């Protein structure tokens, strides 16, 4: 099964210059290779800060877009890694090896299997 590992962190903590944060950032660069070597890697992207982003919507056929969201004090989504794992526990174990797990939080979400029925809410 495939799982998306959504990496969240406080920008102030991650880019605040602490030795621990700097060490984690240094390790991040090579982490794709670790996942490729173990055979779990599917895709990964780190995201720039949300000030560089646009948020859009289409209503009544009209698109509107605004800049941002702007950085707040809360944690933000900073990266997405998609992995292949046997089950949720293996995905959690693999995600726990990511350097940023020691600085922020990682949400592990199963990727939708479209052969399954939609959720009933």
């Amino acid at each position, binding site marked *: 099964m495939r799982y998306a590992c959504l990496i969240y962190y406080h920008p102030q903590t991650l880019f605040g210059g602490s030795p621990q944060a700097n060490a984690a950032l240094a390790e991040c660069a090579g982490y794709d290779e670790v996942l490729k070597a173990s*055979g779990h890697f599917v895709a990964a992207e780190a995201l720039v800060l949300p000030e560089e982003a646009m948020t859009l919507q289409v209503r009544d056929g009209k698109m509107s877009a605004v800049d941002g969201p702007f950085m707040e004090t809360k944690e933000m989504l900073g990266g997405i890694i998609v992995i292949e794992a046997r089950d949720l526990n293996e995905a959690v174990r693999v995600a726990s090896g990511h350097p940023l797990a020691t600085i922020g939080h990682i949400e592990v979400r199963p990727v939708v299997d479209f052969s399954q029925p939609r959720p009933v809410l």
Partner: protein
Amino acid sequence: MSVAGTHACLETVYRTEARRVLATLIRLLGGFDAAEEALHEAFAAAAEQWPRQGLPANPYSWLVSAGRFRTIDCWRREARLAGTLPELLALSEQIAEPITPEDIADDELRLIFVCCHAALAPDARIALTLREVGGLTTEEIARAYLTPAPTIAQRIVRAKAKIRDEAIPYEVPDRNQLPARLESALQVIYLIFNEGYAATQGPSLTRADLCAEAIRLGRLVVDLLDQPEAHGLLALMLLHEARRATRVDANGDLVLLEDQDRSLWDRGLIGEANGLIGRALASRQVGPYILQAAIASIHAEAARTADTDWTQIVALYDVLGRVAASPVVTLNRAAALGMRDGPQAGLTAIEDVMAQGSLDGYHLAHAARADMLRRLGLAEAARASYQRALDLTRQPAERRFLETRLDQLAEHRTLRD
């Protein structure tokens, strides 16, 4: 070997060897996380090398070596970075791989005993055993238990953290500890079986899978450990399994033992169970599982309900009551007494045990009492007891059964009026 052939072969090896390889790697590498990573690495290496080099003569040894080698290699790299190379090198040198089949069996037993350790919460023992010993995925366990996957995943994560933090030893219990530790392991297996057997709600296929998995685990323990109670549990599960197809009708309604089509009972399973009971009884160490299996075996051997040897069943309940006294055992004995000596004797015995109070909330106690009253023709009192049983259960098939009994009593009254 073709790509498809290699893939199928790897799948087969995964099913047969992954658990044993993991069991050994946990011991060699000192923990679940490192071992699971090594197991994954080992199978990744196999997928890469076996198509070129062919299947190794001993896949288990090959996978253990590959997993161990890659992990130590990784530790060396990390140690070089951290400057702690000498200590880690010393550690990796001490690692010895199992050589004899007995060593491998010991590793498998270590895994079972650590997953079923009494220090872990009962729910966690079940989830951990199904995943680590049974090889089920978190998602499969979640489906079988109608529980969200993250709940199961968290139980497993916490259980492993507890094993690590409390340094629960990875060992086969010594002779003094073995009875208690085995009891805990057998209980986990029986709970898994009962979950699949007793519940009739939810996707029926996955529930049946739990029974099959419990029987597989039961066979594994019997193969690894020659203990009478392990034989007893396996026999008990096989005897239940032999009757499974007949205990629910096409509408999903409960069929009582006395009404089941005995010609459909699986004679092969019953024969296997009887062999196990015979061996277990010959050991002269009589425990609760053997006794329950012996009782189930008497039911299985009776060609018709009327042929059931109730005298022997009551006698076995007497022994069971001495070995493992509980109000439920006393209640079951009382019900058997009602079959041996008639409903009045059964009613008196049931009321005696119910007077002790602990079965007030147990619907089957009220249903058993109602049954004796019904057989004595005391319709009003029977109705009240069936109603009490109905109020106490939410299980759909059991509710339908009790409602049918209540309807029959109402019809009976109408006819009489």
